[in-house]
């Protein structure tokens, strides 16, 4: 279990209904199913991951979330998760809107481009940041919508979204008092717990 997943798990109420958008190999849902007794569905497009979900006993639907979620009923889940996927979506703002139509609360995690390492990389080298954590070159990256903690805060304000909790961690998923104080500068991964106002 990745530490960011531990943080997410704490925000999930036992016995609740969870929709994981881009559920990967289903390890988080498997964890939530067994420790929090949730009823859950994951959406995924990667064939290998889908088979792993099935092997894990995790409900998985082969569906591209970038094509919309209109097949899901409003208010049919307690929590919708969007972990490390926001930056790869064509219309992140629309998907977040949809998440909060389908679920009462949303949990969104994304790499924070406002992190000092990204800033330093761009200002010193003058090139788009590439790291072990974000290894793609600009022309072949699936990540087409990078944002910063401040950007996401602004989006939440614009879309009338309440931020219930926000935490940032580094690439080893550790938090610190300093990151709490300067999240947009020190945080590498942002984790938001959001709902409609």
């Amino acid at each position: 279990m990745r530490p960011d997943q531990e943080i997410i798990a704490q925000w999930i109420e036992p016995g609740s209904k969870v929709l994981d958008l881009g559920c990967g190999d289903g390890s988080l849902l498997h964890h939530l199913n067994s420790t929090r007794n949730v009823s859950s569905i994951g959406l995924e497009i990667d064939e290998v991951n889908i088979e792993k979900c099935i092997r894990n006993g995790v409900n998985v639907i082969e569906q591209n979330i970038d094509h919309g979620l209109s097949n899901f009923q409003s208010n049919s889940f307690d929590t919708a998760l969007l972990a490390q996927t926001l930056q790869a979506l064509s219309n992140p703002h629309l998907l977040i809107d949809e998440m909060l139509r389908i679920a009462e609360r949303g949990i969104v995690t994304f790499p924070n481009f406002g992190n000092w390492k990204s800033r330093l990389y761009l200002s010193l080298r003058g090139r788009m940041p590439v790291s072990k954590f974000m290894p793609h070159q600009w022309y072949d990256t699936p990540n087409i919508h990078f944002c910063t903690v401040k950007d996401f805060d602004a989006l939440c304000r614009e879309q009338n979204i309440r931020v219930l909790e926000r935490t940032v961690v580094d690439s080893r998923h550790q938090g610190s008092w300093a990151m709490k104080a300067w999240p947009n500068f020190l945080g590498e991964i942002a984790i938001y717990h959001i709902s409609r106002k």
Partner: protein
Amino acid sequence: MSTAFPQDSVGLVSPTLHKFDEELVLRSGKVLKRFELMVETYGELNADRSNAILVCHALSGDHHAAGYHSADDQKPGWWETCIGPGKPIDTNRFFVVSLNNLGGCAGSTGPVSTNPDTGKPYGPDFPVVTVRDWVKSQKMLMERLGIGKWAAVAGGSLGGMQVLRWAISYPECLHNAIVIAAAPKLSAQNIAFNEVARHSITSDPNFHQGRYLEHNTLPKQGLMLARMVGHITYLSDSAMRAKFGKSIAEFEAQGTNFGRDLRTGKLSFGFNVDFQVESYLHYQGERFSENFDANTYLLMTKALDYFDPSVDYDGDLSKAFANSDCKFLIMSFSTDWRFSPERSRELVNSLLKAGKDVSYLEIDADEGHDAFLLPVPRYLNALSAFLDKVHEEVCSDAS
């Protein structure tokens, strides 16, 4: 194929006839006073009978789903790809039950059986049976076999529809529902193809209003035509191009020939069979017309047309699943245009709306509707993965 069967085959099998002296009230209101079901089983039922899987057949299938009927049997059962030791429906650990449905022509009570009221074959007097009636008879078979709950019920196409009916009518009787290349109901296009098939049969001069057996004849031309039409809908355009066209290597050198391989290498400039695809359809149709009963074909297509579990629920399929208590695995194939992925997604969306446990895979496959019978790796792997979990969760012998 005279001596040894493949290692991963159930090998030599023989069916058993189960007689039911109870009445079966059909959806039409008609009653079968007694009936018989031809059944094959593979693998061993475990001590607490928790490892049984029911396999439901499609339009032209029967109880012979796996293995061989004799040492020189050329063809194994229809789902040999999936059933056998070490295969996805692993007979080393599951007890597999497969039957010929009522109205069939492979040993279960149907139009070729003798009508007890007349002493003659039922023929066209055999009542129209529905998916619901089949599942009702399958439930009676389940009780006869002493099975309280299926570990899974599985089927493709019309077989998948029977699985859905199980989940709706007998929710307490199955742990898992595996529905492959199916649809929640037929579309007008599907019904149209079925009607062409039926009309070709009923307009055959040898049909005799369905009493061809009494006239010692068979409507072979009509049945052949019905099968030819059906066969086209089972294959995709790409599957036909590949099957009847140049091999890939030649393809790249010469460009695609769209599956237009000639039978003899030149055009006949007549109305003979010129292309491979024509001769294939003729062959398939002819072989089928010698082995299948025309009245059964009419009944099976009607069962397809009538299938629509949402009718009892104001057209809302999700309501039909309200009491379903099983896990669902739904799979579709990308080039299937008979029951396209969209149709499976309708099903998935209804299950999601009903809040059910469901997994859905859309398998990339060139083979069209027939893919569910073929060794498509991703399909077989997913089925294996799912059934591994089924075994672990519901079978007492799992370690």
